């Protein structure tokens, strides 16, 4: 009796030992390498010798499969929500078009009337650059892949560049992720922390514009640069740096290497589908800047009018940057959640396989026990 029991249990042991961690799919195997990156999953315990101590029983595996299934549902849902929000961000850009179109038209016409030499408007003053304000736009939430990291990395690069050139700088951080990054690094001078919000409105853009206006006009800084991520593609995330202030009287948009784009050329992004998959298209819209057919009386001096126009231009530039940044963040989240869902599917598959194998091994073991036990009596 005792020997048969011992026999049975040793058989059970043998059966389990035959199942290596590799075949259980719980550690190390290539196809499941991505498994451990699933958010929040705790890795399998490893001991120093390199073989994993697999203590996953049948119940544990079952629970794990259920967890993975739930996580997959969440990541799927988040992906769809992000896609829907991108459409909303698009609409916001389209809603902003009437404003920027009309602004550009008037900007052109006013510039025709004045010679750029005698302009003395605070927002356009070009000064020797001793200090720069760098506006860094990140997101408020995580789970968006490398989005926030790319922006912050670029910010660090720019700060290093400025240090090399001997130019002082201060940061205006927009977005909770950037805020917490800079708060953890007290050696970086930060002027202000602001939150990004879900849907940037003109109130938020105004708050930021106020701060930058005050910084620039009070001559605390001599240049303001804007670091944000343009919505170019769903996969790539490439932050760019634009010179925001001083503005050019004609409203050109320049990046830090001095490449300028006409104010009348506006690029809008669009989320569409191509071959059944999401894709991003950018189209350039050129505003018609035809003359107003002659007599347009200026109530004030052209320079005064320009003075009223340029803050509007500053606001719309900021708003556009915020909108692009949000769209990029949503796209990055879509991507990240898509990958997470795929990983979850893979993990579920391999877990199911190992669960079934274990289950069958247990059944086989029990049968062998019974057979062995009955064999004695026969």
């Amino acid at each position, binding site marked *: 009796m005792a020997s048969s029991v011992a026999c049975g249990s040793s058989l059970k042991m043998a059966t389990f030992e035959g199942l290596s961690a590799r075949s259980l799919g719980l550690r190390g195997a290539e196809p499941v390498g991505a498994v451990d990156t699933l958010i929040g999953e705790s890795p399998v315990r490893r001991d120093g010798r390199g073989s994993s101590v697999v203590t996953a029983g049948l119940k544990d595996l079952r629970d794990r499969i259920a967890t993975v299934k739930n996580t997959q549902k969440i990541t799927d849902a988040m992906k769809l929500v992000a896609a829907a929000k991108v459409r909303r961000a698009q609409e*916001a850009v389209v*809603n*902003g078009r*009437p*404003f*920027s179109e*009309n*602004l550009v038209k*008037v900007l052109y*016409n*006013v510039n025709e009337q004045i010679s750029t030499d005698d302009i003395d408007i605070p927002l356009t003053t070009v000064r020797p650059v001793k200090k720069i304000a760098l506006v860094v736009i990140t997101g408020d939430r995580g789970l968006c892949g490398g989005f926030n990291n790319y922006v912050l990395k670029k910010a660090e690069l720019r700060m290093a560049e400025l240090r090399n050139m001997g130019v002082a700088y201060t940061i205006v951080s927009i977005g909770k992720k950037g805020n917490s990054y800079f708060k953890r690094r007290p050696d970086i001078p930060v002027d202000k922390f602001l939150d990004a919000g879900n849907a*940037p*409105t*003109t*109130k938020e*853009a*105004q708050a930021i514009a*106020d*701060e930058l*206006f*005050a*910084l620039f*006009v*009070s*001559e*605390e800084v001599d240049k303001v640069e804007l670091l944000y991520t343009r919505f170019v593609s769903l996969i790539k995330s490439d932050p760019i740096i634009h010179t925001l202030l001083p503005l050019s009287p004609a409203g050109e948009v320049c990046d830090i290497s001095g490449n300028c784009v006409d104010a009348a050329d506006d690029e809008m992004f669009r989320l569409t589908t191509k071959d059944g998959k999401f894709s991003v298209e950018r189209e350039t819209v050129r505003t018609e800047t035809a003359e*107003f057919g002659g*007599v*347009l*009386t*200026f*109530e*004030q001096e052209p320079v*005064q*009018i320009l*003075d*009223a*126009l340029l*803050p*509007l231009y500053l*606001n*719309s530039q900021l*708003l556009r940057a915020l909108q692009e940044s949000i769209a990029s963040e949503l796209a990055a989240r879509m991507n990240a959640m898509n990958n997470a869902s795929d990983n979850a599917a893979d993990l579920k598959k391999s877990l199911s396989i190992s669960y079934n194998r274990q289950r069958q091994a247990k059944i086989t073991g029990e049968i062998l026990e019974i057979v062995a036990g009955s064999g004695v009596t026969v």
Partner: protein
Amino acid sequence: MDTFRLRVIAPDRIIFDSRAAEVILATNTGLVGILPNHAPLLTGLDIGILKIRTNELWSVVAVMGGFAMVHDNDITILVNEAENAKEINLQEAQEIFQLTQTKVSQADGRKENIEANLNLKRAKARLDAIQEGIKEGTAS
């Protein structure tokens, strides 16, 4: 009745797009009233109030700077931000105005001065708008 097309546009939305009979703008060189068939005009707007008359009723809007373009019986006003007097609470506007006043007196340094003054102007515009709106009977 003679009307003109009036559009008031903010960077993120269109605030007004309809026909009006008269509009009074607060420019940095004084108040300007525009009636139908006005001569072509381009003027900057200060932080102040904008009054629009439609069907004998005046609506009051607080605008935070911008400009107005009058051309061919079509007026386009671009503003940084605008708030209809109907949406402003008189109590709140008064409190905010007093707060900004104290901030201006406490402001230290050029940058803070610029910021504080800007906020004061805006608070005053909001307060003026709601007071004017109550007077005209289109806000409470």
